[in-house]
């Protein structure tokens, strides 16, 4: 039984690490602060959440499980609120969302 649990936890760890890396990659490669926020908030939350859940699975002691669940709940609750606040203030201070503009050769159309 513990072998199965540890296998699931190992898979969750690798998946969570990959999602955290994908969030950082999206933060570097995307065009605009709003699109970057989309990458970092969603993938980042799921990445951290999966890593914390794998700790909850193999943690054992009840204090470890409780703290892990507290971290998970808090991150899932606060990441959308923080992203919403930054997005709203960025929009208010005049940053326009990125849109694909035609290049100079296309502009004659």
């Amino acid at each position, binding site marked *: 039984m513990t072998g199965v649990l540890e296998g699931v936890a190992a898979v969750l*760890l*690798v998946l969570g690490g*990959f999602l955290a890396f994908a969030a950082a990659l999206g933060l570097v490669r995307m065009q605009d602060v709003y699109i970057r926020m989309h990458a970092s908030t969603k993938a980042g939350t799921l*990445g951290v959440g999966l890593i914390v859940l794998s*700790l909850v699975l193999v943690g054992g002691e009840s204090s470890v499980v409780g703290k*892990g669940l507290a*971290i998970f709940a808090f991150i899932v609750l606060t990441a959308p609120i923080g992203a919403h606040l930054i997005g709203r203030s960025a929009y208010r201070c005049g940053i326009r969302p990125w849109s694909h503009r035609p290049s100079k050769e296309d502009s004659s159309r």
Partner: protein
Amino acid sequence: MIIEHRHDLTWMMQVAIDIAALFIIAGLVLTTVRLIRGPTLPDRVVALDLLTMLLVAFLTLFALATGVNAYLDAAVVLALVAFLATVAFARFIDRSPQSKEDATK
């Protein structure tokens, strides 16, 4: 071996912890690149937010690998403080009068 493991972990968990630590370290480097380069202030705030989330994940990984539960307390506190910092920065961007000119640069 990136993190010094405790000795009663199975080889499966050791390999998974090492892979996840490698991914998170690469993510931290990429996020720092965006934090330094970010053309506007909201870009840097988003990068800082992801940086603290990745640090929470790394601290959790440390608690899992070493069995020292104090790392988990640090992760809880960091997750709490990161949200406060994000809210404060959003308020700061809203209120500061010169952010309008800075943001369009």
